[in-house]
């Protein structure tokens, strides 16, 4: 036996009942794996929801004329002469800016019609701000050619229209008059959200501005920043730069329900983790109590030959700590081996949940494990194991050597 008496003794005691130790280890491994996997999936799902929303058009920051958000009227436009885009592009941290003409309208084919949001965009700038150009499944994204339109598959199906077909777009101009024009479908897209695919269409901004008589005015400036975390600080900077005639909102302001949902899912993760932790504590209390009861006579002998109660207490806690640490390490390794490939390939949930697509998550979830959760698991799991051993250890040190030696 080497110099470290307690560690050696604890280690050997753990393995004297291999089956029981394996059961405890397994429960810790499953606990660790469950905690991290749940965290990975929840984060992956919520980040994807947010990421998809940002990429589908929300962007990190939006600028509108004051009052536009409350009343999305065509007349609440930003004058094109103001050159806001150039001013904002100069701000450090800003990666891309796109001017958008936004209106609500009616789109009709020969067979059907639907109410939709129309986005008039500069196709070059928009490619740097939203992901729509990358979601084209058939045909092409906007090229700047006259009267081309990109629609979602869902909407195309509803209109019973396909690539190259004409559709008629009707919308109000700033004075309320209805205008219409004919557009030809140049591309069909499929996003992560079925709701988006049937409600949004994209045309060149020139065409929409001409149709609505807006000149070079637009309604929205969509901004992508280098890091989402910069959005809040840039918001203040932009606000002071553009003045009070404009409202500046980050994705957190624009998507409050989604942000709340993300915060809520994080909070609920803590509750799930706490339940796993409590279950683990009781499991360990149970096993360590059995261990103590089985070894009463041995503890009596140890105390008789001069093993102090302090050392006995430490020995029992050390056994639990070793099991906790071993379980945590093995659990982390196993979870890592499973998680790392999935973080690249994603997990396809389409076979049992179409709801994910309608939620805007996408059928494939890429787990994202937060380092805080890993760190917390590394710290908390052995602590939980030790906490579970405290009561059995107290029971052990309260034993009277004389009675313990006689115990059979």
């Amino acid at each position: 036996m080497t110099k470290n008496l307690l560690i050696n003794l604890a280690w050997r005691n753990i393995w004297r009942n291999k089956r029981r130790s394996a059961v405890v280890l397994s429960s810790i491994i499953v606990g660790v794996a469950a905690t991290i996997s749940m965290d990975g999936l929840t984060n992956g799902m919520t980040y994807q929801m947010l990421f998809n929303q940002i990429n589908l058009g929300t962007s990190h920051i939006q600028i509108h004329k004051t009052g536009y958000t409350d009343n999305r009227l065509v007349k609440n436009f930003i004058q094109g002469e103001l050159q806001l885009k150039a001013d904002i592009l100069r701000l450090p941290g800003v990666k891309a800016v796109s001017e958008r003409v936004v209106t609500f309208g009616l789109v009709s084919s020969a067979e059907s019609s639907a109410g939709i949001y129309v986005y008039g965009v500069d196709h070059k700038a928009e490619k740097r701000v939203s992901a729509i150009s990358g979601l084209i499944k058939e045909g092409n994204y906007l090229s700047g050619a006259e009267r081309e339109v990109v629609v979602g598959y869902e909407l195309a199906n509803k209109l019973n229209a396909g690539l190259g077909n004409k559709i008629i777009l009707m919308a109000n101009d700033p004075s309320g008059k209805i205008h219409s024009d004919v557009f030809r479908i140049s591309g069909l897209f499929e996003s992560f959200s079925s709701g988006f695919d049937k409600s949004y269409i994209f045309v060149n901004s020139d065409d929409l501005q001409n149709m609505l008589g807006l000149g070079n005015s637009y309604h929205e400036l969509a901004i992508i920043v280098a890091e989402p975390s910069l959005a809040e600080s840039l918001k203040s900077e932009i606000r002071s730069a553009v003045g009070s005639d404009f409202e500046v909102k980050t994705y957190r302001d624009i998507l409050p329900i989604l942000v709340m949902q993300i915060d809520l899912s994080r909070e609920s993760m803590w509750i799930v983790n706490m339940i796993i932790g409590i279950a683990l504590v009781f499991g360990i209390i149970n096993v360590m109590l059995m261990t103590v009861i089985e070894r009463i006579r041995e503890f009596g002998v140890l105390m008789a030959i001069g093993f102090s109660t302090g050392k006995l207490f430490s020995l029992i806690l050390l056994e639990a700590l070793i099991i906790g640490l071993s379980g945590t390490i093995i659990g982390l390794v196993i979870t890592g081996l499973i998680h790392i490939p999935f973080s690249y390939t994603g997990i396809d949930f389409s076979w049992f949940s179409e709801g994910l697509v309608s939620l805007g998550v996408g059928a494939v979830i890429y787990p994202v494990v937060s380092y805080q959760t890993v760190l917390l698991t590394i710290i908390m799991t052995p602590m939980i194991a030790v906490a579970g051993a405290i009561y059995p250890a107290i029971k052990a040190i309260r034993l009277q050597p004389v009675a313990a030696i006689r115990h059979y």
Partner: protein
Amino acid sequence: MEIIRSENLDKIYKDNWVPVQALKNINLTVKKGDYMVIAGPSGSGKTTLLNLLGALDKPTSGKIFFEGADISKKTVKELSGLRLNKLGFIFQAYNLIPVLSAIENIEFSLMLLGKPEALRRKLSLNALRDLGIEELANKRPNEMSGGQQQRVAVARAIVNDPSVVLADEPTANLDTATGSNLLDLMDEMNRSKNITFLFSSHDPQVIERARILIRLRDGQIESVQTK
């Protein structure tokens, strides 16, 4: 030289709230080099007395002096230290630590005493050699016979050179020949190394070897016989 002295020792147990007088007015002295046996029928109080003298239990009244110091008022921690430093124990059921080998069992108390590894190993090997079981050094208790385990227990009890070795029915689980061999060894150690032994037993083999025989009956000393 006096090692242990008891004065007017009483021990009362509560058995289902009914007080049971296990020992009454015990006065005895154990001196250096003694080979003393406490004998008596079952329930006479032998083991209770041994436990009190071995600082494993506390008397209801009376005093126990160990090397002149009253131990009846010492704390649990102080008694633990006393057992570690001054006492060696041999139990009826051997009670070796199952996860440790023979030599590790012997080294264990030396480790608790903080002895350096080289010295521990040397003293433990010497103890194994003295008991004729050197070849069992690396065997675990479940790989040894009862007699071999009890020899390891004796080695564990004597290795830290205690003031007194207390042996509670050491031959009770052994066959006659094995028990006799073990007693011969302890007898020899007592004679050659002046190790003090205090036994509790009703085994005639142990009793006939006693140089001081204390007979207990109903918790009281019935007779003291010195050979």
